[in-house]
């Protein structure tokens, strides 16, 4: 079955540094999304990239998608302490019934 798998599972950086998280998946997709979950809070949608797009930007976020390698990366530039959270990639399978599938997540800690 399809599953997004984030890498690394935990990342600790200093404030101001860039953070890069990767996600791999197994089947053809319609789109890939990144979500953030702050401790004790719900999931917040960050960005969606469609299967025919290669790169997308939103503020300090940059997402790339390589469908040939079935992988995506999320780059957070100039990180802040408030970016401390868990980040999940989620994919929507392109065949048959559409369902969002999440990965295990990357726990990012930004040290002030």
């Amino acid at each position, binding site marked *: 079955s399809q599953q997004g798998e984030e890498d690394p599972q935990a990342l600790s950086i200093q404030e101001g540094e860039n953070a890069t998280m990767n996600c791999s998946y197994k089947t053809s997709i319609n789109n890939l999304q990144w979500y953030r979950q702050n401790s004790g809070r*719900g999931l917040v949608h960050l960005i969606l990239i469609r299967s025919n797009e290669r790169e997308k930007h939103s503020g300090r976020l940059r997402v790339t998608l390589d469908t040939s390698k079935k992988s995506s990366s999320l780059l957070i530039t100039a990180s802040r302490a408030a970016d401390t959270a868990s980040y999940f990639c989620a994919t929507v399978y392109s065949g048959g019934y559409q369902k969002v599938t*999440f990965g295990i997540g990357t726990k990012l800690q930004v040290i002030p």
Partner: protein
Amino acid sequence: EAGVTQFPSHSVIEKGQTVTLRCDPISGHDNLYWYRRVMGKEIKFLLHFVKESKQDESGMPNNRFLAERTGGTYSTLKVQPAELEDSGVYFCASSQVGRVYEQYFGPGTRLTVT
């Protein structure tokens, strides 16, 4: 516009007890989803309602879990009897018809079974 709301935010119960989680989707969203994240693991799909009908309940772990969406508005997820492995965060999401990829998530209910 109000977002997806969930109640309670946190529930602590003993093994064998019953707990009912509630989700109120965004008004007008026919699609309603339940997900669960067990500590340290991925967020797993549980089931999907379209209005009051269960479109897909393939993710429901076992028959101790019962989801309902009477009237096609809010939904409840009942766990009876609760087991230790049911502990985790239960998320609800909703979306408009035909926009499964644009789901809006609630804050989640943290369930702790002791």
